[in-house]
Protein backbone atom coordinates (compact mmCIF):
# COMPACT_ATOMS: atom_id res chain seq x y z
CA UNK A 1 0.00 0.00 0.00
CA UNK A 2 1.22 3.45 -0.73
CA UNK A 3 2.12 5.83 2.02
CA UNK A 4 -0.69 8.20 2.94
CA UNK A 5 0.24 11.74 2.15
CA UNK A 6 -1.93 13.29 4.77
CA UNK A 7 -1.44 16.97 4.34
CA UNK A 8 -4.11 18.69 6.33
CA UNK A 9 -4.70 21.41 3.77
CA UNK A 10 -5.79 18.89 1.14
CA UNK A 11 -8.17 17.03 3.34
CA UNK A 12 -11.35 18.57 2.01
CA UNK A 13 -10.43 18.04 -1.61
CA UNK A 14 -10.67 14.28 -1.84
CA UNK A 15 -14.35 13.93 -2.64
CA UNK A 16 -14.15 15.11 -6.27
CA UNK A 17 -11.70 12.29 -6.88
CA UNK A 18 -14.07 9.80 -5.29
CA UNK A 19 -16.88 10.98 -7.54
CA UNK A 20 -14.71 10.72 -10.64
CA UNK A 21 -13.54 7.25 -9.67
CA UNK A 22 -17.11 6.14 -9.05
CA UNK A 23 -18.21 7.43 -12.44
CA UNK A 24 -15.42 5.58 -14.23
CA UNK A 25 -15.90 2.39 -12.22
CA UNK A 26 -19.65 2.66 -12.67
CA UNK A 27 -19.26 2.72 -16.44
CA UNK A 28 -16.78 -0.12 -16.21
CA UNK A 29 -19.23 -2.23 -14.23
CA UNK A 30 -22.24 -1.33 -16.38
CA UNK A 31 -22.06 -4.61 -18.34
CA UNK A 32 -22.35 -6.58 -15.10
CA UNK A 33 -25.20 -4.48 -13.86
CA UNK A 34 -27.01 -5.10 -17.15
CA UNK A 35 -26.23 -8.81 -16.95
CA UNK A 36 -27.68 -9.08 -13.45
CA UNK A 37 -30.83 -7.07 -14.08
CA UNK A 38 -31.64 -8.62 -17.46
CA UNK A 39 -31.08 -12.11 -16.07
CA UNK A 40 -34.22 -11.64 -13.99
CA UNK A 41 -36.43 -10.49 -16.84
CA UNK A 42 -38.06 -12.11 -19.83
CA UNK A 43 -37.80 -10.66 -23.33
CA UNK A 44 -41.00 -8.65 -23.05
CA UNK A 45 -40.08 -7.07 -19.71
CA UNK A 46 -36.67 -6.18 -21.07
CA UNK A 47 -38.11 -4.67 -24.23
CA UNK A 48 -40.41 -2.43 -22.21
CA UNK A 49 -37.87 -1.46 -19.59
CA UNK A 50 -34.26 -1.48 -20.70
CA UNK A 51 -32.39 0.13 -17.86
CA UNK A 52 -34.05 -0.44 -14.51
CA UNK A 53 -34.23 -3.73 -12.63
CA UNK A 54 -37.56 -5.50 -12.45
CA UNK A 55 -39.50 -5.51 -9.20
CA UNK A 56 -38.72 -8.54 -7.02
CA UNK A 57 -42.22 -9.98 -7.39
CA UNK A 58 -41.79 -10.01 -11.19
CA UNK A 59 -38.42 -11.74 -11.18
CA UNK A 60 -38.22 -14.57 -13.69
CA UNK A 61 -36.37 -17.09 -11.55
CA UNK A 62 -36.95 -19.86 -14.06
CA UNK A 63 -34.16 -18.23 -16.07
CA UNK A 64 -31.78 -19.37 -13.38
CA UNK A 65 -33.19 -22.87 -13.16
CA UNK A 66 -32.55 -23.32 -16.88
CA UNK A 67 -29.19 -21.57 -16.74
CA UNK A 68 -27.96 -23.86 -13.98
CA UNK A 69 -28.99 -26.95 -15.91
CA UNK A 70 -27.25 -25.63 -18.98
CA UNK A 71 -24.02 -24.26 -17.53
CA UNK A 72 -23.15 -26.48 -14.57
CA UNK A 73 -21.68 -29.33 -16.65
CA UNK A 74 -19.51 -26.80 -18.48
CA UNK A 75 -18.41 -25.30 -15.18
CA UNK A 76 -17.47 -28.76 -13.91
CA UNK A 77 -15.31 -29.39 -16.98
CA UNK A 78 -13.69 -25.99 -16.68
CA UNK A 79 -12.87 -26.61 -13.03
CA UNK A 80 -11.23 -29.94 -13.86
CA UNK A 81 -9.17 -28.43 -16.67
CA UNK A 82 -8.15 -25.22 -14.92
CA UNK A 83 -7.28 -26.76 -11.55
CA UNK A 84 -5.32 -29.65 -13.09
CA UNK A 85 -3.50 -27.35 -15.48
CA UNK A 86 -2.61 -24.92 -12.70
CA UNK A 87 -1.34 -27.58 -10.33
CA UNK A 88 0.59 -29.34 -13.08
CA UNK A 89 2.10 -26.15 -14.44
CA UNK A 90 3.29 -25.02 -11.02
CA UNK A 91 4.66 -28.43 -10.01
CA UNK A 92 6.79 -28.84 -13.12
CA UNK A 93 7.77 -25.19 -13.15
CA UNK A 94 8.99 -25.46 -9.54
CA UNK A 95 11.13 -28.43 -10.47
CA UNK A 96 12.50 -26.64 -13.51
CA UNK A 97 13.15 -23.39 -11.68
CA UNK A 98 14.93 -25.28 -8.90
CA UNK A 99 17.23 -26.84 -11.48
CA UNK A 100 18.19 -23.46 -12.89
CA UNK A 101 18.41 -21.65 -9.56
CA UNK A 102 20.32 -24.14 -7.40
CA UNK A 103 23.56 -24.75 -9.28
CA UNK A 104 25.05 -23.61 -12.52
CA UNK A 105 24.83 -27.08 -14.04
CA UNK A 106 26.70 -27.91 -17.25
CA UNK A 107 24.37 -27.21 -20.16
CA UNK A 108 22.12 -25.11 -17.98
CA UNK A 109 22.84 -21.93 -19.88
CA UNK A 110 21.90 -23.50 -23.16
CA UNK A 111 18.64 -24.78 -21.73
CA UNK A 112 17.91 -21.43 -20.18
CA UNK A 113 18.40 -19.73 -23.53
CA UNK A 114 16.09 -22.29 -25.08
CA UNK A 115 13.41 -21.35 -22.57
CA UNK A 116 13.91 -17.62 -22.98
CA UNK A 117 13.66 -17.91 -26.74
CA UNK A 118 10.14 -19.23 -26.32
CA UNK A 119 9.16 -15.99 -24.60
CA UNK A 120 9.55 -14.33 -27.97
CA UNK A 121 7.47 -16.93 -29.77
CA UNK A 122 3.93 -15.81 -30.38
CA UNK A 123 1.52 -18.62 -29.61
CA UNK A 124 -0.62 -17.71 -32.58
CA UNK A 125 1.93 -18.90 -35.13
CA UNK A 126 1.77 -22.58 -34.32
CA UNK A 127 -1.90 -23.14 -33.56
CA UNK A 128 -2.27 -24.98 -36.87
CA UNK A 129 0.51 -27.48 -36.31
CA UNK A 130 -0.42 -27.83 -32.67
CA UNK A 131 -3.78 -29.04 -33.87
CA UNK A 132 -2.12 -31.57 -36.18
CA UNK A 133 0.09 -32.71 -33.30
CA UNK A 134 -2.87 -33.26 -30.99
CA UNK A 135 -4.50 -35.26 -33.75
CA UNK A 136 -1.45 -37.52 -34.05
CA UNK A 137 -1.34 -37.95 -30.28
CA UNK A 138 -5.01 -38.93 -30.32
CA UNK A 139 -5.79 -36.13 -27.92
CA UNK A 140 -8.51 -34.41 -29.94
CA UNK A 141 -11.87 -34.30 -28.22
CA UNK A 142 -10.36 -34.93 -24.78
CA UNK A 143 -9.94 -32.73 -21.73
CA UNK A 144 -6.39 -34.06 -21.49
CA UNK A 145 -5.40 -31.97 -24.48
CA UNK A 146 -6.49 -28.79 -22.71
CA UNK A 147 -4.81 -29.78 -19.44
CA UNK A 148 -1.51 -30.66 -21.10
CA UNK A 149 -1.51 -27.51 -23.21
CA UNK A 150 -2.29 -25.48 -20.09
CA UNK A 151 0.66 -27.07 -18.26
CA UNK A 152 3.15 -26.69 -21.08
CA UNK A 153 1.98 -23.20 -21.96
CA UNK A 154 2.68 -21.99 -18.43
CA UNK A 155 6.20 -23.42 -18.15
CA UNK A 156 8.27 -20.60 -19.58
CA UNK A 157 6.65 -17.77 -17.67
CA UNK A 158 6.46 -19.66 -14.36
CA UNK A 159 10.04 -20.92 -14.53
CA UNK A 160 11.24 -17.42 -15.36
CA UNK A 161 9.49 -15.89 -12.37
CA UNK A 162 10.24 -18.74 -9.96
CA UNK A 163 13.92 -18.91 -10.83
CA UNK A 164 14.41 -15.27 -9.84
CA UNK A 165 12.54 -15.94 -6.67
CA UNK A 166 14.39 -19.10 -5.65
CA UNK A 167 17.73 -17.43 -6.30
CA UNK A 168 16.84 -14.82 -3.70
CA UNK A 169 16.33 -17.44 -0.99
CA UNK A 170 19.29 -17.27 1.43
CA UNK A 171 21.85 -19.91 0.53
CA UNK A 172 22.39 -21.00 4.14
CA UNK A 173 18.92 -22.49 4.23
CA UNK A 174 19.79 -24.93 1.45
CA UNK A 175 23.16 -25.69 2.97
CA UNK A 176 21.64 -26.39 6.36
CA UNK A 177 19.14 -28.75 4.76
CA UNK A 178 21.90 -30.46 2.83
CA UNK A 179 23.85 -30.97 6.07
CA UNK A 180 20.84 -32.84 7.40
CA UNK A 181 21.10 -35.10 4.39
CA UNK A 182 18.00 -33.75 2.62
CA UNK A 183 17.66 -34.72 -1.01
CA UNK A 184 16.89 -32.09 -3.66
CA UNK A 185 13.28 -33.12 -3.59
CA UNK A 186 13.20 -32.62 0.18
CA UNK A 187 14.92 -29.24 -0.15
CA UNK A 188 12.33 -28.19 -2.70
CA UNK A 189 9.54 -29.26 -0.40
CA UNK A 190 10.91 -27.96 2.88
CA UNK A 191 12.79 -24.87 1.81
CA UNK A 192 11.55 -23.57 -1.51
CA UNK A 193 7.83 -24.10 -1.25
CA UNK A 194 7.38 -22.62 2.23
CA UNK A 195 9.54 -19.64 1.29
CA UNK A 196 7.77 -18.84 -1.96
CA UNK A 197 4.16 -19.16 -0.88
CA UNK A 198 3.05 -15.72 -2.09
CA UNK A 199 4.64 -15.96 -5.51
CA UNK A 200 3.21 -19.43 -6.01
CA UNK A 201 -0.19 -18.06 -5.08
CA UNK A 202 0.19 -15.25 -7.58
CA UNK A 203 1.27 -17.55 -10.36
CA UNK A 204 -1.55 -19.94 -9.52
CA UNK A 205 -4.10 -17.16 -9.90
CA UNK A 206 -2.63 -16.06 -13.22
CA UNK A 207 -2.45 -19.62 -14.58
CA UNK A 208 -5.96 -20.37 -13.40
CA UNK A 209 -7.44 -17.24 -14.96
CA UNK A 210 -5.62 -17.91 -18.22
CA UNK A 211 -6.96 -21.42 -18.48
CA UNK A 212 -10.42 -20.45 -17.25
CA UNK A 213 -10.76 -17.74 -19.92
CA UNK A 214 -9.40 -19.75 -22.83
CA UNK A 215 -11.88 -20.54 -25.57
CA UNK A 216 -9.90 -20.91 -28.78
CA UNK A 217 -8.19 -24.21 -28.02
CA UNK A 218 -11.33 -25.77 -26.50
CA UNK A 219 -13.29 -24.65 -29.56
CA UNK A 220 -10.85 -26.41 -31.86
CA UNK A 221 -10.21 -29.46 -29.71
CA UNK A 222 -13.61 -30.42 -28.29
CA UNK A 223 -16.38 -32.10 -30.20
CA UNK A 224 -18.73 -33.64 -27.64
CA UNK A 225 -21.02 -31.33 -25.69
CA UNK A 226 -20.41 -33.32 -22.51
CA UNK A 227 -16.76 -32.22 -22.60
CA UNK A 228 -17.38 -28.53 -23.25
CA UNK A 229 -15.69 -26.00 -21.02
CA UNK A 230 -17.35 -22.69 -20.19
CA UNK A 231 -15.81 -20.93 -23.18
CA UNK A 232 -17.16 -23.28 -25.82
CA UNK A 233 -20.45 -23.62 -23.97
CA UNK A 234 -20.99 -19.87 -24.11
CA UNK A 235 -20.09 -19.71 -27.79
CA UNK A 236 -22.70 -22.36 -28.53
CA UNK A 237 -25.24 -20.52 -26.42
CA UNK A 238 -24.52 -17.33 -28.37
CA UNK A 239 -25.22 -19.17 -31.62
CA UNK A 240 -28.86 -19.95 -30.82
CA UNK A 241 -31.32 -18.42 -33.28
CA UNK A 242 -33.95 -17.87 -30.64
CA UNK A 243 -32.51 -15.63 -27.99
CA UNK A 244 -34.06 -15.59 -24.57
CA UNK A 245 -31.96 -12.74 -23.28
CA UNK A 246 -32.92 -13.25 -19.67
CA UNK A 247 -31.86 -16.87 -19.79
CA UNK A 248 -28.67 -16.06 -21.66
CA UNK A 249 -27.69 -13.43 -19.11
CA UNK A 250 -28.52 -15.80 -16.27
CA UNK A 251 -26.24 -18.35 -17.92
CA UNK A 252 -23.49 -15.72 -18.12
CA UNK A 253 -23.91 -15.02 -14.44
CA UNK A 254 -23.85 -18.69 -13.50
CA UNK A 255 -20.66 -19.06 -15.54
CA UNK A 256 -19.09 -16.24 -13.53
CA UNK A 257 -20.35 -17.49 -10.19
CA UNK A 258 -17.62 -19.98 -9.16
CA UNK A 259 -14.84 -17.44 -9.37
CA UNK A 260 -16.93 -14.75 -7.74
CA UNK A 261 -17.55 -16.99 -4.74
CA UNK A 262 -13.90 -17.91 -4.42
CA UNK A 263 -12.98 -14.28 -4.89
CA UNK A 264 -15.20 -13.22 -2.01
CA UNK A 265 -13.08 -15.33 0.31
CA UNK A 266 -9.65 -14.77 -1.14
CA UNK A 267 -10.07 -11.14 -2.15
CA UNK A 268 -6.89 -9.93 -0.45
CA UNK A 269 -4.78 -12.65 -2.00
CA UNK A 270 -6.22 -11.93 -5.42
CA UNK A 271 -5.62 -8.19 -5.29
CA UNK A 272 -2.15 -8.57 -3.86
CA UNK A 273 -1.33 -11.36 -6.26
CA UNK A 274 -2.51 -9.51 -9.31
CA UNK A 275 -0.77 -6.30 -8.26
CA UNK A 276 2.57 -7.98 -7.76
CA UNK A 277 2.04 -10.37 -10.63
CA UNK A 278 1.38 -7.44 -12.87
CA UNK A 279 4.64 -5.92 -11.72
CA UNK A 280 6.63 -8.97 -12.69
CA UNK A 281 4.73 -9.72 -15.87
Amino acid at each position, binding site marked *: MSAPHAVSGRKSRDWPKHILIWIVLGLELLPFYMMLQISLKNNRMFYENTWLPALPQDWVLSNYVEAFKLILPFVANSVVVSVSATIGALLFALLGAYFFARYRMPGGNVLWAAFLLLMLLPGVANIVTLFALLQNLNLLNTLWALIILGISGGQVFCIYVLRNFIEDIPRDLFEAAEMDGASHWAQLRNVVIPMSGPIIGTLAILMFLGSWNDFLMPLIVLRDPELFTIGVGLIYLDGEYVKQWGRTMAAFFV*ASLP*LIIIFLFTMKLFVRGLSSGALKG
Partner: protein
Amino acid sequence: MPLPISKKKALHEWKLYLFIIPSLLLVGTFSYFPTLSAIYHSFFRWGGGDAKEFIGLKNFIDVLNDQVFWASFVTIGILVVANLFKMIPSIFLAVLIHRLRSDKWQYWYRVILVLPMIVPGLVTLFIWKFFFDPNLGVLNAAIEQSGIKTALVHLDKFFGWGVFFEGVPTAWLGEPALIIPALIIWGFPWIGAVGVLIFLAGLQSIGTEVYEAADLDGVTPFQKFLHIEFPLIMTQVRLSLVLMIIGTLQGFGLQFLLLGENGGAGGRGMVPGLWMFNRAFIAGEFGYACALGLFLFVFILALTLFNNKFVRVEK
Protein backbone atom coordinates in the same frame (compact mmCIF):
# COMPACT_ATOMS: atom_id res chain seq x y z
CA MET B 1 22.90 -16.30 -8.45
CA PRO B 2 23.13 -20.04 -8.79
CA LEU B 3 26.28 -21.56 -7.37
CA PRO B 4 29.02 -22.42 -9.82
CA ILE B 5 29.61 -26.12 -9.75
CA SER B 6 32.56 -28.29 -10.71
CA LYS B 7 32.26 -31.01 -13.34
CA LYS B 8 32.79 -33.67 -10.68
CA LYS B 9 30.17 -32.27 -8.35
CA ALA B 10 27.75 -31.92 -11.26
CA LEU B 11 28.24 -35.56 -12.07
CA HIS B 12 27.47 -36.36 -8.47
CA GLU B 13 24.32 -34.23 -8.65
CA TRP B 14 23.09 -35.83 -11.87
CA LYS B 15 19.71 -36.34 -10.31
CA LEU B 16 19.12 -32.62 -10.61
CA TYR B 17 18.72 -33.09 -14.35
CA LEU B 18 15.61 -35.13 -13.67
CA PHE B 19 14.03 -31.92 -12.38
CA ILE B 20 14.19 -30.16 -15.69
CA ILE B 21 13.14 -33.11 -17.83
CA PRO B 22 9.34 -32.76 -17.51
CA SER B 23 9.38 -29.07 -18.42
CA LEU B 24 11.81 -29.73 -21.22
CA LEU B 25 9.68 -32.49 -22.65
CA LEU B 26 6.52 -30.42 -22.48
CA VAL B 27 8.07 -27.36 -24.03
CA GLY B 28 9.85 -29.40 -26.65
CA THR B 29 6.70 -31.25 -27.67
CA PHE B 30 4.14 -28.50 -27.48
CA SER B 31 6.14 -25.39 -28.31
CA TYR B 32 9.27 -26.24 -30.26
CA PHE B 33 7.92 -29.11 -32.31
CA PRO B 34 4.84 -27.25 -33.61
CA THR B 35 6.98 -24.26 -34.51
CA LEU B 36 9.48 -26.32 -36.45
CA SER B 37 6.65 -28.25 -38.00
CA ALA B 38 5.03 -24.97 -39.06
CA ILE B 39 8.23 -23.87 -40.75
CA TYR B 40 8.48 -27.23 -42.48
CA HIS B 41 4.86 -27.31 -43.61
CA SER B 42 4.91 -23.78 -44.94
CA PHE B 43 6.71 -25.19 -47.99
CA PHE B 44 3.86 -27.57 -48.73
CA ARG B 45 0.37 -27.54 -50.04
CA TRP B 46 -1.15 -29.27 -47.05
CA GLY B 47 -4.78 -29.85 -46.17
CA GLY B 48 -4.12 -30.99 -42.64
CA GLY B 49 -4.02 -34.73 -43.23
CA ASP B 50 -1.13 -37.00 -44.19
CA ALA B 51 -1.17 -35.98 -47.83
CA LYS B 52 1.01 -33.02 -48.72
CA GLU B 53 2.76 -31.71 -51.77
CA PHE B 54 6.03 -29.78 -51.81
CA ILE B 55 5.58 -26.46 -53.56
CA GLY B 56 8.73 -24.59 -52.59
CA LEU B 57 8.27 -20.92 -51.90
CA LYS B 58 4.86 -20.67 -53.51
CA ASN B 59 3.05 -20.12 -50.21
CA PHE B 60 5.35 -17.26 -49.33
CA ILE B 61 4.93 -15.64 -52.73
CA ASP B 62 1.18 -15.97 -52.32
CA VAL B 63 1.39 -14.31 -48.92
CA LEU B 64 3.25 -11.38 -50.42
CA ASN B 65 0.44 -10.99 -52.96
CA ASP B 66 -2.31 -11.59 -50.44
CA GLN B 67 -4.41 -8.41 -50.44
CA VAL B 68 -6.51 -9.49 -47.48
CA PHE B 69 -3.45 -10.19 -45.35
CA TRP B 70 -1.85 -6.82 -45.93
CA ALA B 71 -5.16 -5.02 -45.58
CA SER B 72 -5.53 -6.76 -42.22
CA PHE B 73 -2.24 -5.19 -41.13
CA VAL B 74 -3.72 -1.76 -41.81
CA THR B 75 -6.70 -2.66 -39.67
CA ILE B 76 -4.51 -3.94 -36.85
CA GLY B 77 -2.39 -0.80 -37.15
CA ILE B 78 -5.46 1.32 -36.57
CA LEU B 79 -6.43 -0.83 -33.63
CA VAL B 80 -2.95 -0.57 -32.08
CA VAL B 81 -3.07 3.21 -32.32
CA ALA B 82 -6.56 3.21 -30.83
CA ASN B 83 -5.39 0.94 -28.01
CA LEU B 84 -2.61 3.40 -27.33
CA PHE B 85 -5.21 6.07 -26.57
CA LYS B 86 -7.29 3.55 -24.69
CA MET B 87 -4.44 3.32 -22.14
CA ILE B 88 -5.06 6.89 -21.02
CA PRO B 89 -8.13 6.18 -18.85
CA SER B 90 -6.20 3.49 -16.98
CA ILE B 91 -3.35 5.88 -16.21
CA PHE B 92 -5.86 8.54 -15.22
CA LEU B 93 -7.68 6.18 -12.89
CA ALA B 94 -4.46 4.88 -11.34
CA VAL B 95 -3.31 8.41 -10.56
CA LEU B 96 -6.72 9.29 -9.13
CA ILE B 97 -6.73 6.26 -6.87
CA HIS B 98 -3.15 6.83 -5.83
CA ARG B 99 -3.81 10.42 -4.82
CA LEU B 100 -6.54 9.38 -2.40
CA ARG B 101 -5.47 9.75 1.17
CA SER B 102 -7.45 6.85 2.49
CA ASP B 103 -5.63 3.51 2.33
CA LYS B 104 -8.87 1.73 2.89
CA TRP B 105 -10.50 3.29 -0.13
CA GLN B 106 -7.44 2.62 -2.24
CA TYR B 107 -7.75 -1.03 -1.32
CA TRP B 108 -11.46 -1.25 -2.01
CA TYR B 109 -11.13 0.44 -5.36
CA ARG B 110 -8.56 -2.17 -6.25
CA VAL B 111 -11.01 -4.89 -5.26
CA ILE B 112 -13.70 -3.40 -7.49
CA LEU B 113 -11.16 -3.13 -10.28
CA VAL B 114 -10.27 -6.80 -10.06
CA LEU B 115 -13.92 -7.79 -10.17
CA PRO B 116 -14.30 -7.61 -14.00
CA MET B 117 -11.18 -9.75 -14.29
CA ILE B 118 -12.68 -12.75 -12.56
CA VAL B 119 -15.74 -12.75 -14.79
CA PRO B 120 -14.92 -15.00 -17.76
CA GLY B 121 -13.64 -12.89 -20.63
CA LEU B 122 -16.24 -14.39 -22.93
CA VAL B 123 -19.05 -13.18 -20.73
CA THR B 124 -17.81 -9.60 -20.99
CA LEU B 125 -17.35 -10.06 -24.71
CA PHE B 126 -20.85 -11.36 -25.28
CA ILE B 127 -22.42 -8.70 -23.10
CA TRP B 128 -20.68 -6.12 -25.26
CA LYS B 129 -21.85 -7.85 -28.36
CA PHE B 130 -25.34 -7.53 -26.98
CA PHE B 131 -24.71 -3.81 -26.34
CA PHE B 132 -24.02 -3.41 -30.07
CA ASP B 133 -27.28 -5.10 -31.07
CA PRO B 134 -29.09 -2.65 -33.36
CA ASN B 135 -32.51 -3.54 -32.02
CA LEU B 136 -32.23 -4.00 -28.29
CA GLY B 137 -28.68 -2.85 -27.89
CA VAL B 138 -27.85 -0.59 -25.01
CA LEU B 139 -25.48 1.46 -27.12
CA ASN B 140 -28.21 2.55 -29.53
CA ALA B 141 -30.55 3.26 -26.64
CA ALA B 142 -27.84 5.35 -24.98
CA ILE B 143 -26.94 7.47 -27.99
CA GLU B 144 -30.62 7.86 -28.83
CA GLN B 145 -31.67 9.00 -25.36
CA SER B 146 -28.67 11.23 -24.76
CA GLY B 147 -29.08 13.12 -28.02
CA ILE B 148 -25.71 12.02 -29.37
CA LYS B 149 -27.59 10.31 -32.18
CA THR B 150 -28.98 13.63 -33.44
CA ALA B 151 -25.48 15.07 -33.47
CA LEU B 152 -24.21 12.02 -35.35
CA VAL B 153 -27.00 12.33 -37.92
CA HIS B 154 -26.06 15.95 -38.54
CA LEU B 155 -22.40 15.07 -38.83
CA ASP B 156 -23.36 12.28 -41.20
CA LYS B 157 -25.30 14.67 -43.40
CA PHE B 158 -22.39 17.08 -43.40
CA PHE B 159 -19.70 14.55 -44.22
CA GLY B 160 -21.88 12.21 -46.26
CA TRP B 161 -20.95 9.00 -44.43
CA GLY B 162 -24.31 7.44 -45.12
CA VAL B 163 -24.42 5.40 -41.91
CA PHE B 164 -26.49 7.34 -39.36
CA PHE B 165 -30.12 8.16 -40.09
CA GLU B 166 -32.84 9.55 -37.87
CA GLY B 167 -35.19 6.82 -36.74
CA VAL B 168 -33.02 4.08 -38.20
CA PRO B 169 -31.27 1.78 -35.72
CA THR B 170 -27.52 1.82 -36.20
CA ALA B 171 -26.08 -1.59 -37.01
CA TRP B 172 -22.71 -1.29 -35.32
CA LEU B 173 -21.48 -4.69 -36.39
CA GLY B 174 -23.46 -4.93 -39.65
CA GLU B 175 -22.30 -1.80 -41.44
CA PRO B 176 -18.80 -2.03 -42.97
CA ALA B 177 -17.94 1.58 -42.22
CA LEU B 178 -18.85 1.16 -38.55
CA ILE B 179 -16.93 -2.00 -37.76
CA ILE B 180 -13.64 -0.36 -36.86
CA PRO B 181 -15.36 2.39 -34.84
CA ALA B 182 -17.29 -0.35 -33.03
CA LEU B 183 -14.05 -2.20 -32.25
CA ILE B 184 -12.63 1.04 -30.91
CA ILE B 185 -15.68 1.83 -28.78
CA TRP B 186 -15.56 -1.72 -27.47
CA GLY B 187 -14.76 -1.88 -23.79
CA PHE B 188 -15.64 1.73 -22.98
CA PRO B 189 -14.44 3.27 -20.61
CA TRP B 190 -11.36 1.24 -21.48
CA ILE B 191 -10.14 0.47 -18.01
CA GLY B 192 -7.63 -2.37 -18.06
CA ALA B 193 -7.55 -3.76 -14.53
CA VAL B 194 -4.05 -5.15 -14.94
CA GLY B 195 -2.89 -1.86 -16.42
CA VAL B 196 -4.23 0.15 -13.47
CA LEU B 197 -2.62 -2.27 -11.01
CA ILE B 198 0.71 -2.02 -12.82
CA PHE B 199 0.58 1.76 -12.74
CA LEU B 200 -0.45 1.79 -9.09
CA ALA B 201 2.52 -0.41 -8.28
CA GLY B 202 4.77 2.07 -10.06
CA LEU B 203 3.27 5.01 -8.24
CA GLN B 204 3.92 3.42 -4.86
CA SER B 205 7.46 4.70 -4.82
CA ILE B 206 6.33 8.31 -4.61
CA GLY B 207 6.81 9.39 -1.04
CA THR B 208 4.75 11.87 0.92
CA GLU B 209 7.55 14.40 1.00
CA VAL B 210 7.46 14.76 -2.77
CA TYR B 211 3.82 15.79 -2.68
CA GLU B 212 4.43 18.07 0.25
CA ALA B 213 7.22 19.81 -1.57
CA ALA B 214 5.04 20.13 -4.65
CA ASP B 215 2.20 21.58 -2.61
CA LEU B 216 4.52 24.14 -1.09
CA ASP B 217 5.51 25.22 -4.57
CA GLY B 218 1.85 25.61 -5.49
CA VAL B 219 1.97 23.07 -8.29
CA THR B 220 -1.32 22.37 -10.10
CA PRO B 221 -2.65 18.79 -10.18
CA PHE B 222 -1.86 18.45 -13.87
CA GLN B 223 1.70 19.67 -13.44
CA LYS B 224 2.03 17.23 -10.58
CA PHE B 225 1.05 14.46 -12.93
CA LEU B 226 3.39 15.64 -15.63
CA HIS B 227 6.46 16.17 -13.48
CA ILE B 228 6.08 13.74 -10.59
CA GLU B 229 3.79 10.88 -11.44
CA PHE B 230 4.22 10.32 -15.14
CA PRO B 231 8.04 10.05 -15.11
CA LEU B 232 7.77 7.46 -12.35
CA ILE B 233 5.39 5.19 -14.21
CA MET B 234 7.20 5.65 -17.50
CA THR B 235 8.69 2.15 -17.19
CA GLN B 236 5.29 0.63 -16.49
CA VAL B 237 3.69 2.57 -19.31
CA ARG B 238 6.33 1.32 -21.70
CA LEU B 239 5.97 -2.23 -20.40
CA SER B 240 2.22 -2.25 -20.89
CA LEU B 241 2.70 -0.61 -24.26
CA VAL B 242 4.86 -3.53 -25.36
CA LEU B 243 2.42 -6.06 -23.94
CA MET B 244 -0.49 -4.26 -25.59
CA ILE B 245 1.12 -4.10 -29.02
CA ILE B 246 2.09 -7.76 -29.02
CA GLY B 247 -1.27 -8.76 -27.56
CA THR B 248 -3.17 -6.78 -30.17
CA LEU B 249 -1.09 -8.16 -33.03
CA GLN B 250 -1.61 -11.74 -31.91
CA GLY B 251 -5.17 -11.54 -30.74
CA PHE B 252 -8.15 -12.33 -32.89
CA GLY B 253 -10.64 -13.83 -30.46
CA LEU B 254 -12.51 -10.56 -30.15
CA GLN B 255 -12.88 -10.15 -33.91
CA PHE B 256 -13.73 -13.83 -34.37
CA LEU B 257 -16.53 -13.87 -31.82
CA LEU B 258 -17.87 -10.39 -32.46
CA LEU B 259 -17.74 -10.38 -36.26
CA GLY B 260 -17.35 -13.99 -37.35
CA GLU B 261 -14.64 -15.84 -39.21
CA ASN B 262 -14.70 -13.45 -42.20
CA GLY B 263 -14.13 -10.29 -40.24
CA GLY B 264 -17.69 -9.01 -40.44
CA ALA B 265 -19.44 -6.99 -43.13
CA GLY B 266 -17.08 -6.22 -45.97
CA GLY B 267 -14.31 -8.01 -44.09
CA ARG B 268 -13.43 -4.73 -42.41
CA GLY B 269 -12.64 -6.35 -39.08
CA MET B 270 -10.16 -8.85 -40.54
CA VAL B 271 -6.90 -8.98 -38.55
CA PRO B 272 -3.79 -11.04 -39.38
CA GLY B 273 -4.39 -13.70 -36.73
CA LEU B 274 -7.97 -14.18 -37.82
CA TRP B 275 -6.92 -14.48 -41.46
CA MET B 276 -4.50 -17.24 -40.52
CA PHE B 277 -7.19 -19.00 -38.52
CA ASN B 278 -9.61 -18.52 -41.40
CA ARG B 279 -7.22 -20.00 -43.98
CA ALA B 280 -6.56 -23.02 -41.79
CA PHE B 281 -9.88 -23.86 -40.21
CA ILE B 282 -12.29 -22.38 -42.77
CA ALA B 283 -10.51 -22.80 -46.10
CA GLY B 284 -8.59 -25.90 -45.04
CA GLU B 285 -5.32 -24.49 -46.45
CA PHE B 286 -3.12 -25.54 -43.56
CA GLY B 287 0.19 -25.11 -45.39
CA TYR B 288 -0.68 -21.58 -46.43
CA ALA B 289 -1.82 -20.79 -42.91
CA CYS B 290 1.59 -21.92 -41.64
CA ALA B 291 3.27 -19.49 -44.02
CA LEU B 292 0.97 -16.70 -42.82
CA GLY B 293 1.83 -17.63 -39.24
CA LEU B 294 5.54 -17.38 -39.98
CA PHE B 295 5.15 -13.90 -41.41
CA LEU B 296 3.26 -12.91 -38.31
CA PHE B 297 5.89 -14.56 -36.14
CA VAL B 298 8.77 -12.76 -37.79
CA PHE B 299 6.89 -9.49 -37.56
CA ILE B 300 6.16 -9.90 -33.86
CA LEU B 301 9.66 -11.14 -33.15
CA ALA B 302 11.20 -8.10 -34.80
CA LEU B 303 8.89 -5.84 -32.86
CA THR B 304 9.67 -7.61 -29.58
CA LEU B 305 13.42 -7.38 -30.09
CA PHE B 306 13.08 -3.72 -31.00
CA ASN B 307 10.93 -3.11 -27.94
CA ASN B 308 13.25 -5.00 -25.61
CA LYS B 309 16.17 -2.92 -26.73
CA PHE B 310 14.15 0.24 -26.46
CA VAL B 311 12.94 -0.58 -22.95
CA ARG B 312 16.37 -1.67 -21.69
CA VAL B 313 18.16 1.41 -22.97
CA GLU B 314 15.68 3.74 -21.35
CA LYS B 315 15.89 1.99 -18.02
